[in-house]
């Protein structure tokens, strides 16, 4: 278990974290949702022991030489070195294998090509994120902390990174804490969500709980959806290929069933949950 308890941190500019408690179990994926400047990176740095909290404690119940791996703010890489050389440097400083086979295994694990020998400054953001994760995973940490891992990625990059995160959690039982200001990405991969605002945890719960408690809008995609009768009850806003309806989570299954009965083949139904809703309406 990785646990931060009653963590507070202030700088000359003001209080950044106030009495924050957070915990991640092995194999669990936790999301930390908050606006820019809410205190996410500071919390991550404290959990990784890069900065000291003014009050509170961090406990990692593990015997690993490197309990936590992570990327904070951006993947910190040597831009003039290749991916393999970056891995060699970070593996070498902690005296773990740096032979070509081991380095290649680390690259394969995160889906990076073995034939790229050029400096990482030429890499795309997605590739840098993957290399950052490969470095974070060196020496088999039990927990992974990823700060804004989806920023700068295209939708394919996001989907592929989510796949990698799910795989690491399921196959290697790694506890993962990710932050983002985008609900959609976190809801796709997190078991548990924390919402942070102005340095305080203002909402927390399982992802299902949070979605169930807060979702009021759905985007439904189907051919000729504008002609459907059932959606007229739910303040529909027509888009080019979809319709947005305001509907409580309890009723969405019935709506979809009715659409099916009316002869509409629904191809997508996406809940739309905003960060503001989670900040303003905590789960009781």
């Amino acid at each position, binding site marked *: 278990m990785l646990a931060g308890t009653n963590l507070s941190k202030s700088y000359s500019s003001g209080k950044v974290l106030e009495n924050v408690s957070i915990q991640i179990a092995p194999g669990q994926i936790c999301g930390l949702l908050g606006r820019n400047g809410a205190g996410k990176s500071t919390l991550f740095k404290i959990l990784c022991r*890069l900065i000291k909290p003014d009050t509170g404690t961090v406990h990692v119940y593990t015997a690993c*030489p490197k309990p936590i791996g992570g990327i904070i703010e951006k993947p910190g890489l040597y831009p003039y070195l290749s991916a393999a050389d970056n891995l060699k440097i970070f593996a*070498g400083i902690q005296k773990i294998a740096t032979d070509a086979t081991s380095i290649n295994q680390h690259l394969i694990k995160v889906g990076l090509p073995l034939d790229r020998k050029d400096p990482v400054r030429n890499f795309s953001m997605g590739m840098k994120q993957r290399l950052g994760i490969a470095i974070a995973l060196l020496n088999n940490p039990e927990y992974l902390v990823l700060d804004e891992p989806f920023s700068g990625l295209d939708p394919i990059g996001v989907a592929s990174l989510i796949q990698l995160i799910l795989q690491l959690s399921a196959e290697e039982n790694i506890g993962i804490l990710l932050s983002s200001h985008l609900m959609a990405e976190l809801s796709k991969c997190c078991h548990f969500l924390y919402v942070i605002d102005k340095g305080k945890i203002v909402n927390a719960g399982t992802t299902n709980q949070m979605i169930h408690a807060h979702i009021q809008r759905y985007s439904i995609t189907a051919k000729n959806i504008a002609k459907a009768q059932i959606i007229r009850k739910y303040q529909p806003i027509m888009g080019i290929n979809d319709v947005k309806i305001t509907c409580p989570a309890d009723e969405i299954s019935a709506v979809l069933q009715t659409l099916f009965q009316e002869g509409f083949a629904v191809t997508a139904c996406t809940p739309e949950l905003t960060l503001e809703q989670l900040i303003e309406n905590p789960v009781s």
Partner: protein
Amino acid sequence: MSALLFAELLKLIKQPKTYWALGAIFLIELLILVTAYYQGSTILDILLDSLKQSFYFEGSLLNGNLILYIVLNGLWFNVPLIIMIVTSGILTDEYKDGTIQTSLLQAVKKQHFILAKYIVAVAFTLVVIAFMMLSTCVLAYTIFGKGDLVVYLNTLNFFKSADAFKRICWAFASGAVAMVFYSLVSITLAVWIKEAAKTWIAAALFLVITNLLLKLDLGTPMLNHFFFPKLMDTWQQFFYFEIDWFPIFLNNAILLFYGVVLTFIGTWTFHKQDIG
């Protein structure tokens, strides 16, 4: 610790900046050689015309030893400036690229991490001085040959060719101690300042102030003896007619002691401060 040292060396070797620094020093040497080749004889003839009527000088006074002495004078400003820029970059680049966070998220001790940087900075400085001396020796002796050395320090001092070479070698060794001190200062400044451009400005300022304070008299010989700017030109003492070994040894020992103290302060500060 050995793994960290190896990693630091690897980074230094793979960084283009390292070769820019060596290239800059080589360029300065070349400029000195070219200037000396085309104008050196004329200037020396004007300066020493009257002396040549009274004394016999073996070989040309514009010789490899004189060129080496001129290059040695780069130890006043340009060489330490280049060294301070590169060595401070050993740490400030890590802050800029975020690799300091990545490194400290590995199973690495903070004190070992920074200590490795201090040690590699010292090693780099010694390599630079060795490169500077060897490249100048090869070029200067090949182009200008050997000969007696004339140096003006309060008065004109003349040294036979073989003696001059020995003194130059010792001066490079003593100068290397001063350069090591500067490199340790630059890493310590980087620990405090973190940002590359600000650290360079601070390093240049430190260098200028040190040179300005060199002639400052603190009143008592004891204070003067321990005042670090007065220790930076110890290498010059090899060009007085009589070499006084004890103060040279003492000055360098004090400077090394200051270097160790700086390293300790820098390591302690780094250990205490937040990263990020």
